[in-house]
């Protein structure tokens, strides 16, 4: 039984790690784009800003379980299979990208506009402002956003059982709920709670360390 738990925990970790990593890599540029194309920012572009904002809202409003099924053809195209743990990574990633983009957007917006103006006054290019001002200044907020995404995806990954993705949530539903085995339900829930606590604490520790180092706490 212990092996089953470990196997499921690993599947959850694997799905969530890969999907949140890919979502971070793709979501950060989108978040940056949302901020810099805004009116009065360093590269205003109303059409791009509105389109992007609209698409992100659309994807964020689709319930995950629907998204999971709706993109099955895409999943098949990308990873060669519709079912299994790796297949579950595709919908998880797609659900997380707009989420990451919004979190990055809000942490970038918290940067004092005066700092950006100062960089412009020094002759910085928009790309330099992104690289040397926006990202380093927002680093603690960005890290927290990534952790929030990771933790949220742990919850989403429970639904991945629907496509045979495995993981702890799937175990709880199949073994615990459907077979009425309360012990399995409780143990998986406890493992999930511990996982969430560990990752959230790691994120909190890291961000507060950076903030303290910068004299912001």
């Amino acid at each position, binding site marked *: 039984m212990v092996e089953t738990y470990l196997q499921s925990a690993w599947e959850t970790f694997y799905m969530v790690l890969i999907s949140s990593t890919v979502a971070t890599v793709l979501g950060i540029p989108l978040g940056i784009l949302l901020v810099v194309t805004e009116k009065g920012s360093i590269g205003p572009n109303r059409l791009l800003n509105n389109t992007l904002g609209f698409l992100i809202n659309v994807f964020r409003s689709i319930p995950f379980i629907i998204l999971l099924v709706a993109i099955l053809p895409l999943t098949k195209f990308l990873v060669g299979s519709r079912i299994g743990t790796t297949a579950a990574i595709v919908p998880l990633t797609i659900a997380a990208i707009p989420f990451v983009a919004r979190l990055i957007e809000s942490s970038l917006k918290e940067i*004092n506009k*005066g*700092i950006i*103006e*100062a*960089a*412009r*006054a*020094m*002759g*910085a*290019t928009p790309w*330099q402002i992104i690289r*040397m*001002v926006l990202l*380093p*200044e927002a*680093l603690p907020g960005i890290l927290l956003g990534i952790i929030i995404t990771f933790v949220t995806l742990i919850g989403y990954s429970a639904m991945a059982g629907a496509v045979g993705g495995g993981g702890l949530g799937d175990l709880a539903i199949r073994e615990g709920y459907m077979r009425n085995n309360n012990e399995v339900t409780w143990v998986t829930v406890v493992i999930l709670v511990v996982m969430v606590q560990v990752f959230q604490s790691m994120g909190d520790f890291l961000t507060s360390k950076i903030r303290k*180092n*910068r*004299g*912001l706490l």
Partner: protein
Amino acid sequence: MIEIKSLRKTYQGPSGPLHALDGITLTIPKGKIYGIIGPSGAGKSTLIRTINMLERPTEGNVIIDGEDITRYSESRLRALRQQVGMIFQHFNLLTSRTVAENIAFPLEICGVPKEQIRARVAELLPLVGLEDKADTYVSNLSGGQKQRVGIARALANHPKILLCDEATSALDPQTTQSILRLISDINKKLDLTVVLITHEMNVIREICDYVAFIEQGKIIEADSVRQIFTNPRSSVVKEFVQGALEGDKLQHLLEEGLFHQSPRGVLIRVSFVGEGVNEPLISTVIRRFDVDANILFGNVDSLGDTAFGTLLIELTGEETNIVQAIEYIRLTHVRLEVIRHG
């Protein structure tokens, strides 16, 4: 030299166009400190931002050393901005960087090699008196220290022009003094043209060579500070000058009604400029018109080698004598204002 010609900046407001700048023409001589003063919303912030084109004007030209920068492309502007330093009211330092790294920032933007950056930062730290703070994150600094970092950062690229956007408005009076002294020092040492905007006449008086008064996007008066202080033309400027010479103290005393205790007497304010300070006006008045003069407040100040003074006097005695005394004072080159009749 910076020439600003018929500059206009118009925004589309909800109820029609708003003129932030309404035909500004100014000449800012090289190597001098030029102050632009006005109430908030007057357009001074927009004006200073046209000198490095952070704000593009709707009409008119900004010409720096013969080059019309309003025609510059964005990439030429970036090159220009690297040669124009700017400091800000709220400092606008990077919290993700230490003092030394903040000073290095504009050099990194220009792609200066690391070794040269290190050497330049090492030169600048003592110039602003922050040798011992090189590795401190800026959030741990006081306001005055933050502005010193701002100044060092603005000077890093050896600029010819320094723009100061309300650089002392967030600082206490003592720190303001030390920052003003620093700006004045570097102006002389580096032959830097300094353009500053402020709403404090004190700043103009302390360090500026020239001053322009701006209100609702228009220049009311622009001249050398000496000229403005000794011979203000418009009433707005007169008020500003008087305020700067008396400080807030007299206004404060008047508002508190401290001078309204004695029921008799006429309360007058006389302002001396230049030689008037040295004349025995009050004793002459007392002897010639048989009135008593009770000095309630007095202040003498100087701008360069010109002295300024203000006295608040209560005149008591026969009414006709007081009227004659006031007539007499008015005939001298001293300014007189009756604050309260008997």
